[in-house]
C-alpha cells in the first residue's frame, strides 16, 4: 500500500494505531461504567477490563506492524511514518500492556476504578505515540499535553491516599509549568523561523536564520521543557516525590513509557529541526547528561525505600540515555531505541515485584521488607535479581547490551568523558541495586513480621517471568533487536558530531 498524503484519508491510514487505541480507550471507559457498579473489589471485573485494554494495545500493535508495509511518498509532517515512530510505538505499547498485566492485584486491593485507570493508560499511550510520530511542534505540544494530563491523573489516581494526591498535585503544577516553557519555546522558534514544522525549521536555519538570539532563546526554552518532562538534573525535583507518591502501577508506567516518549521527542526535535545548531545545544545536553548521571546515582545510594531508589535510578537512566542525544549519530539513536525497549521491560518488571513485596499497597516499600524474600519466593526473587542486574547493566542481561550499545554511540562521537561517567555511575548503581539483592538473599526475614504467602496471581507471575526471560534472551542474543533498532534509526544522526568537530572534552 502506498500513502502519498494527497487525500485526507491517507492521514487516517497513517494514524490507524492511534485511532484504534483511542476508540478502544472509549470502549474500556464505557465497559468500566457497566462493570463496576459499586463492586470495585471484584477481581473478575478488574481482570476483564484489563484484558480488554490489553487487547486494544494488541490491536494497535497489529496496526503498527501493518504500517511497516506501507510505502510513503512525500514528507508528511503532521504525522510521519518512519522507523523512529514505529519502533518507539513498540516501546509504548509494550510498556502499557506490561503495566496493565501486573496491576490487577494492586487495583483490586486498593479499590481503584479499573475502567478509568486503564482508559487513562491507553489515552496516555496515544499521546506518546503521536508525540513520537509528529514532525510538527504544535502537534507535538498537543500530544505531549494529552500524555501529560493523563499522567497527572495517573499520579493522583488513588484519591484515598494523601501521598498519591500530593504526587498528582505536584506533578500537575510542575508539569504545567514545564509545558509553559515548552510552549513559549515553540512560540519563539516560530517567531524566529516562521514555521513549526521540524524539517522547515531546519531549512530556514540552514538558509541563514541560525544563531539569532530569538531562536537560541526558543531552543533553550524547548530544552528546559523537555528536561522537566524527562526529569533531568537540575529539573528533576518533582520526579522522586511524584514517583514515590503515585500508585505503583502509575509509577511503573510513568518512569518507563512517559520518559521514553519525552526522550524520543527531544531527540527528534534536536536532530530534525536543529542539526545546524549542534554546536549550541551539544554542550548543554552534555552537561545535563553528566549532572544527571552523577547526582541521581549519588542520591540513589542513600535511599532506604526501594520505590524511591527506583525513582532515582530512573532519573539516572534518563541521564545515560541523554548521552545518546549528545552523541547525535545514527548508532547513538539506535542505541537509545534499543535501550528504551530493554529499560521499559526491566523497569516495569522491577516495579511489578515491588508491588508484590509491598503487598499491593504502599506501606512496605522499605528495603527491610525484602529481608528473607529469597527464601519465601525463590522464583520471584530470582526474577527480581535479574531485573536489578539488568538495570545495573550486568553482563548476561539486556541492560548490559543496551549500555554497551550506548557506549558505542558515545565512542563514535568521542564522548569519552561521558563514557567514563557512565561507567562510574554504573559502579555506584551496583551498590544500590545489590543492596536490594542482599536483603532478599542474605538477610533472614524479620521476626514479628510474619506475613502469609505473598499474593500474585498466575497472570502476574507469568508476565514477570516472561519479562525476565526476555531480558536474559536479549542479554545473550541481542542481534535481531539490534538490527531492528539500527534500521529504525536510519537517517537520524548528524554527520558532524562532537568527534569530528573536536568538541568532545
Amino acid at each position: 500500500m502506498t500513502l502519498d498524503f494527497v487525500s485526507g484519508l491517507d492521514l487516517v491510514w497513517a494514524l490507524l494505531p492511534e485511532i484504534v487505541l483511542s476508540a478502544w480507550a472509549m470502549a474500556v471507559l464505557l465497559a468500566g461504567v457497566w462493570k463496576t457498579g459499586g463492586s470495585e473489589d471484584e477481581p473478575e471485573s478488574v481482570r476483564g477490563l484489563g484484558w480488554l485494554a490489553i487487547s486494544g494495545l494488541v490491536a494497535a500493535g497489529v496496526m503498527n506492524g501493518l504500517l511497516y508495509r506501507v510505502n510513503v511518498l512525500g514528507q508528511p509532517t503532521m504525522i510521519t511514518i518512519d522507523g523512529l515512530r514505529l519502533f518507539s510505538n513498540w516501546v509504548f505499547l509494550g510498556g502499557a500492556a506490561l503495566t496493565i498485566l501486573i496491576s490487577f492485584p494492586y487495583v483490586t486491593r486498593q479499590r481503584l476504578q479499573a475502567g478509568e485507570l486503564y482508559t487513562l493508560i491507553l489515552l496516555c499511550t496515544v499521546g506518546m505515540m503521536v508525540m513520537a510520530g509528529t514532525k510538527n511542534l504544535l502537534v507535538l505540544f498537543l500530544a505531549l499535553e494529552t500524555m501529560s494530563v493523563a499522567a497527572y491523573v495517573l499520579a493522583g489516581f488513588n484519591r484515598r491516599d494523601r501521598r498519591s494526591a500530593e504526587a498528582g498535585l505536584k506533578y500537575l503544577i510542575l508539569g504545567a509549568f514545564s509545558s509553559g516553557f515548552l510552549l513559549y519555546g515553540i512560540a519563539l522558534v516560530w517567531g524566529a523561523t516562521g514555521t513549526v514544522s521540524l524539517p522547515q525549521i531546519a531549512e530556514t536555519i540552514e538558509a541563514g536564520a541560525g544563531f539569532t538570539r530569538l531562536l537560541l532563546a526558543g531552543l533553550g526554552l524547548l530544552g528546559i521543557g523537555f528536561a522537566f518532562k524527562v526529569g533531568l538534573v537540575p529539573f528533576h525535583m518533582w520526579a522522586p516525590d511524584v514517583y514515590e507518591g503515585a500508585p505503583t502501577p502509575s509509577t511503573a508506567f510513568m518512569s518507563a513509557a512517559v520518559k521514553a516518549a519525552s526522550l524520543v521527542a527531544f531527540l527528534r526535535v534536536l536532530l530534525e529541526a536543529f542539526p545546524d545548531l549542534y554546536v549550541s545545544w551539544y554542550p548543554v545536553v552534555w552537561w545535563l547528561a553528566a549532572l544527571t548521571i552523577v547526582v541521581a546515582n549519588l542520591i540513589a545510594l542513600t535511599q532506604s525505600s526501594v520505590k524511591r531508589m527506583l525513582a532515582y535510578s530512573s532519573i539516572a537512566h534518563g541521564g545515560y540515555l541523554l548521552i545518546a542525544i549528545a552523541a547525535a549519530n545514527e548508532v547513538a539513536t539506535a542505541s537509545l531505541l534499543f535501550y528504551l525497549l530493554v529499560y521499559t521491560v526491566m523497569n516495569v518488571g522491577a516495579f511489578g515485584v515491588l508491588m508484590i513485596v509491598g503487598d499491593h499497597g504502599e506501606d512496605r516499600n522499605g528495603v527491610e521488607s525484602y529481608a528473607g524474600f529469597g527464601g519465601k519466593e525463590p522464583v520471584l526473587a530470582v526474577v527480581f535479581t535479574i531485573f536489578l542486574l539488568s538495570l545495573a547493566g550486568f553482563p548476561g542481561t539486556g541492560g548490559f547490551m543496551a549500555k554497551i550499545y550506548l557506549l558505542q554511540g558515545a565512542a563514535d562521537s568521542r564522548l569519552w568523558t561521558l563514557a567514563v561517567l557512565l561507567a562510574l555511575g554504573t559502579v555506584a548503581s551496583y551498590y544500590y541495586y545489590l543492596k536490594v539483592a542482599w536483603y532478599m538473599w542474605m538477610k533472614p526475614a524479620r521476626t514479628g513480621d510474619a506475613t502469609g504467602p505473598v499474593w500474585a496471581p498466575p497472570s502476574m507471575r507469568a508476565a514477570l517471568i516472561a519479562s525476565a526471560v526476555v531480558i536474559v534472551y536479549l542479554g545473550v542474543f541481542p542481534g535481531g533487536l539490534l538490527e531492528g533498532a539500527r534500521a529504525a534509526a536510519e537517517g537520524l544522526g548528524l554527520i558532524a558530531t562532537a568527534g569530528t568537530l573536536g568538541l568532545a572534552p
Partner: protein
Amino acid sequence: MSGLIDGLSYESWALHALLWLPLLGLVTVLLGPKDRAKHIAFGWSAGLFVLSLGLWWAFDPAGDLFQLVHDVEWIGAWGVHYALGIDGIALFMILLTTLTMPLAILGSFEYIREREKAFYAMMLLLQTGIIGVFAAMDLFLFYVFFELTLVPMYFIVGIWGGERRIYAAVKFFLYTALGSLLMLVGILYLYLAAREANGVASFHLTALLGAPLSLEEQLWLFAAFALAFSIKVPLFPLHTWLPDAHVEAPTPGSVVLAAILLKMGTYGLIRFAIPLFPDAATHPTVVALMLSLGVIGIVYAAWVAAVQPDAKKLVAYTSVAHMGFVVIGIFALTVNGLQGGLVVMISHGVSTGALFLLVGMLYERRHTREIADFGGLAKVAPLMATALVITALASIGLPGTSGFVGEFLALLGVFERFPTFAVVATTGVIFASYYMLPMIQKVLFNRLDRPENRQVRDLSARELVVIGPLLFLMVALGVYPAPVLERMEPAVRAVVEYVSDGRLGAE
C-alpha cells in the same frame, strides 16, 4: 591416549563442553532432590575434570600458538565473536580450574548445611564463568565471563559467609566492578581504533592486536586494563578487599577465590594488557611501578601475615605476597620471569587452595580459626598434620616443592634485568618462613594443653581424597616441572617476543 582423542574428535567439542556443561549441571542440581545436590554437583565437576584431562594430550606443544580454536559470529552487528582457543598458558589455567572445582565442592560437603541446591548451582555457574575467561579469544566474550564470575562469588560470600559477609561481598563486588567497567570503556576505545584501522568491526584478539595506537593512548588504555586486573590480582595497594572476602567466605569460596579467581587478574595481564599495549607495558616508568608494587606487596603482605591471629587471614595475606611474585615475574618480561610467574600461579592455586581447605577442616572441628586456640594437633591428628606441613612448605617455596620452582624462576627472570628488585623480593621468601612456620609450630606442635584439642578427629577418607591430589601436585611439580614448562614455553616466548618488538617500533 592420542588415538582415543582423535577418535572422539575431542578437539572439536572439548572447550564448548567444558564451558557449557556446568550450566547443564546447574539445571540438574536445581531439579534434583535436595539431599543429593552435593553429589550431583560433585559428579558433574569430577566428570568435567576427567574430560579436561584430554586437553593435556590434545594440546600439541610443538603446534600452533593457539589450539582448539573455534570462531563463530555471535553479535554480527558489532563484530563480536564466540571465539575460543587455548595456548600453553590458558591450558594450565583451565586444568587448574577443573581440578579445583570438584575438590572445592567435595570439601564443602560438611561445611555447607543450608540452601545446598543454590550453593552448588552457584559453584557450577562460577565454573562456567571461569572457563569462559580462560578460553575466550574475543575481548567482548572475555569481558562478559570476567564479570559473570562476580555474581556467583557475590552470593557465595554473601549467603554462606561469616558474620560480616555482606560487607565483604559488597566490597569484593564493587572493587572488582570499578576496575572492570573502566576497562570496558578502554575496550571500546581499542575496538574503535582497530575498526578505523582495519575497516572491520571486531572484538577478536587478533584484530585488536593490530590497532594503531600512540604511546599516550597505549598508556591510558594500559592503565584502564591494568587497574582492572591489578584489583583482581590483587596488587598492593588495591588488595584491601581480599582479606575481608577470604575471611568471610565459606571454605569452598575461599578456595576458588584464591586458587582460580585471583589468577584471572594475572592471566588478563599476560593475555591482554601486555600484548595489546606493548609499548606501555615496556615503558620504564610502568615497569618500575609494577615491579615496585609487586615487591612492596611481597614484603608488606608477609609482615602483615606474620602478626595475624586468625589462620585464615594469615593465609589470605600470603596470597597477596605470592601474587606479588607473579606480577614481578610477568613484568620482568623475560621468558624465565614469565614462566616463573605462571608456575607460581599454578603452585599458589594448589598450595593455597589446600591451605584454605585445611584451615576449613580445622574450623569444622573446633569452630575457631584463632591460631592461639590450637596446639599439639600433630599428636591427635597425624595425617592432617602431615598434610599441613607439606602444604606450608610448598607455600613458602621449599626446594622440591612447586613453590620453589615458580619463585626461583620468577626471581631469576627479574634478576636478569632488574637485580635490585630481585634482591628485595628474595627477602620475601625468607619472610614467608617467618609467618608460616610459627603458625605451623603453634597449631601442630606446641603442647597439647587444651582439652578440646584432644577431641580433634584426624582426616576422614573424604578429606583425604580432597587433599591428596593437591599434595601430589605440590611435590610432582616441584620435582619434575619439565612437562608443564615445555607446554608453556611457546606461548611465553611468543608474548616476550611480541612485546620486545613493540607496536610502535614495528611500524
